[in-house]
């Protein structure tokens, strides 16, 4: 292949990649972006899976051996997450973890937690672990 042809192909690639970059830029208006941001914050604050994952962090803090903790999957029938409104969730589930004697036992827990709207910050309002 001649060098001229390679230069033409290279120029073609350059044009395509520049066009791709411009084409993938955000074409939304500031108002649309604010609206999307609001929708995103709402989705984030109502997200049950994140609430369940965050509840595990709060439960781990209260366990004798947090590293031994085994939590069920979100789809497990013993896991219940209720959205209470205002970014607040009620999580009821269980954890298998070692107690002070090293025996692995199952404890049921209930965590009420709240997401700080538009952020990744979660606050535990209430943490109850039964059967530790």
């Amino acid at each position: 292949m001649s060098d001229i042809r390679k230069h033409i192909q290279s120029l073609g690639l350059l044009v395509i990649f520049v066009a791709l970059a411009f084409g993938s830029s955000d074409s939304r208006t500031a108002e649309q972006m604010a609206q999307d941001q609001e929708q995103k914050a709402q989705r984030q604050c109502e997200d049950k899976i994140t609430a369940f994952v965050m509840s595990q962090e709060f439960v781990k803090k209260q366990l004798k051996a947090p590293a031994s903790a085994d939590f069920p999957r979100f789809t497990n029938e013993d896991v219940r997450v209720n959205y209470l409104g205002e970014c607040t969730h009620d999580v009821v589930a269980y954890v298998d973890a070692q107690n002070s004697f090293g025996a692995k036992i199952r404890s049921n827990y209930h965590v009420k937690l709240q997401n700080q709207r538009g952020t990744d910050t979660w606050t535990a309002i209430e943490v109850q672990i039964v059967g530790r």
Partner: protein
Amino acid sequence: MFRWFDAVALNPTVLYLRDIGSGYRSRLPDLILFSLPNGLWLLSYSLLLCFVWRDGARRVGIVWVCTLYALAIGSECLQFAGLLRGTFDWADVAAYTASGMVGAILLNSKRKLSCLT
């Protein structure tokens, strides 16, 4: 959001895929979310150039890589100056630089395998 995807009627698919990934979004660092795609964009261009220049003066290909690298860095500078929409980010500059360097190294390499040919 993406004009090209919109133009080829792929936006619903893209939005669907983005929705699937939205659960992981909060757990990924900004570097992966925003800067890595920029780096991969330049790297894919470099790899294609590597293919084009596989049996010729491959160092000339480096000039072509540098051209897009300069345009990318230029766009970041314009964003910094507020002349172009977007947010200036040092991580983007780092991603472009790393990808440009990888592209240049591949083009400079004498091994044909380096260009995936």
